[in-house]
């Protein structure tokens, strides 16, 4: 019984890893065969980014049971800190791979730092405070980034919150962050392969964490906070840990994003409220607490609007219909009964029965 349970859990995780690797191999073959449209090719790195974001948010929403509405904010922090690093180190570290590796670490650290700073005061409270604070954080960080001007010349760094001229730089100085125009000239180190590797690392961290003493404590707190305290589990510590790890992984997604574009600017479109909500939609639709579901939902919901492009104006209408249909199918009693009756397992079971008869 014990061995069976263990292997069942491990098997499920292996399927998740296998799914990602298979998707990568299939995609690579299609790319080699030239069967991928340029549109889809351009979507590959963002897809990886969305998957990382969805999986990391699931750690907060599904496993820890808290609501975070500012995941794009952590992504923004990771994106800007790592892009700045890469830009500064372009000459100092010419090796792209090493520089990108360091950039990822910096993005992860920046995300973790902000996650920690926000979590310390907020996670002590009960209720929906985290949702409110993270929502504000996402909006604030986006606006703060938009007014920062940072330059570098022979004298070192200059910072201003007015415009590029007030940096008072010596001739020959370069503007690194140009306010609303953001960071230009980030080396484009992201690739589909690195994106997949980062997804696998994210999965490794999240899945292993969930299936360990730490994950047990986090889920115990989610299920019953008072009981968790009564058996000696430090509630704030474990909530903070889950939130920080999640923010850090969102920072990694930001690194991937920043190094995929030549210009990085904080706009409502990429780091705004809508982005955070979209990530939440991936998590909810994929199933709260279901890691594999998050991956599938992120991929499907990113590809769907592109696939429906031929419908023009009806595109977003169809998107909404798909969302509603999925929710009915997965959550309503009728939908669940339907799924049970026509699931793969049930069909196979019925066939076996027929054979026996």
């Amino acid at each position, binding site marked *: *019984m*014990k061995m069976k*349970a263990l292997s069942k859990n491990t098997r499920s995780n292996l399927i998740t890893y296998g799914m990602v690797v298979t998707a990568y191999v299939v995609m690579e073959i299609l790319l080699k065969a030239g069967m991928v449209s340029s549109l889809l090719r351009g979507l590959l790195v963002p897809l990886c980014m969305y998957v990382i974001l969805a999986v990391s948010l699931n750690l907060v929403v599904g496993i820890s049971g808290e609501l975070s509405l500012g995941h794009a904010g952590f992504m923004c922090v990771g994106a800007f800190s790592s892009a700045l690093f890469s830009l500064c180190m372009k000459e100092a570290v010419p090796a792209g791979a090493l520089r990108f590796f360091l950039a990822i670490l910096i993005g992860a650290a920046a995300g973790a730092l902000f996650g920690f700073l926000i979590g310390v005061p907020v996670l002590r409270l009960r209720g929906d405070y985290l949702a409110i604070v993270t929502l504000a954080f996402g909006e604030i960080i986006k606006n703060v980034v938009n007014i920062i001007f940072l330059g570098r010349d022979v004298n070192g760094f200059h910072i201003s919150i007015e415009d590029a001229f007030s940096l008072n730089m010596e001739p020959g100085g370069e503007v690194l962050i140009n306010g609303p125009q953001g960071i230009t000239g980030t080396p484009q180190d992201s690739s589909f392969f690195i994106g997949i590797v980062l997804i696998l690392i994210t999965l*490794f*961290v999240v899945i*292993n*964490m969930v*299936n*360990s*003493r*730490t*994950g*047990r*404590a986090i*889920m*115990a707190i*989610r*299920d*019953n906070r*008072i*009981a*968790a*305290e*009564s*058996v*000696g*589990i*430090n*509630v704030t510590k474990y909530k903070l*840990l889950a939130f920080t790890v999640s923010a850090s992984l969102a920072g990694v997604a930001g690194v991937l994003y920043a190094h995929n574009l030549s210009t990085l600017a904080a706009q409502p479109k990429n780091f705004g409220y809508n982005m955070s909500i979209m990530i939440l939609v991936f998590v909810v639709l994929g199933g709260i607490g279901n890691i594999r579901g998050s991956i599938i939902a992120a991929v499907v919901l990113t590809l769907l609007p592109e696939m429906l492009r031929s419908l023009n104006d009806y595109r977003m209408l169809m998107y909404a219909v798909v969302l509603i249909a999925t929710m009915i199918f997965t959550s309503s009693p009728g939908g669940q009964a339907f799924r049970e009756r026509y699931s793969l397992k049930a069909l196979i079971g019925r066939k076996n029965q027929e054979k026996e008869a």
Partner: protein
Amino acid sequence: MALLEVKELGISFGGLRAVDDFHLTIEEGQLYGLIGPNGAGKTTVFNLLTGVYKPTDGYILLDGENITGKKTIEINQHGIARTFQNIRLFGDLTVRDNVKAGLHNHYKYSALTGILRLPKYYKVEKEMDERAMELLKVFDLDKEADYKASNLPYGKQRKLEIARALATDPKLLLLDEPAAGMNPNETQELMNTIRFVRDEFHMTILLIEHDMKLVSGICEQLTVLNFGQILTEGETSVVLNDPKVITAYLGE
């Protein structure tokens, strides 16, 4: 020296004096009962003992150590574990994981060890599994180890809660109405279980209960609370025949 010594314990919620001048002495290995009509303040006493509420007066000594006003998790680490009147299990976790959550502070490895799956992870998890199964066997729950806790029948959920509390390796076990909602057969079985826990684990147990058959069957000493104050205390048979107690329960 007594295992638990409580003196002059009191708490006010605004103008309401929920518990006043409460005292309690429990010797090691005793099975002690706390009874009283509804609203007498029994669960409040439990919440004071486990740090859910901070007492406004008095002090609590556990094994000679002052634990007054400490946090719930600190008190648990000092050696008090409890169950709840309305069952509080980790519903989405398996039965085994509920007990393993109780073992949290006794089998440790860092979060990083868990993520990187270092050898220590496998070693400690194996020890935890063995210990959890041992405890589940005691409560005859080993066959349900992989069930979701919320899918267990009511009586077994009560048992699982006790198993989880015992997993924290307490010196004193507090049971809040363990027989609530049980039929006579289940209550009888529960009585045997509680006695077994006391003898097998050398546990000291303080329990709140309304079921007088259970109380008279297993408790050695009783304290009766009424309106937040001690009505009487002493040997079970003496207390239960006290006219004051009968009046408190049934009225004049």
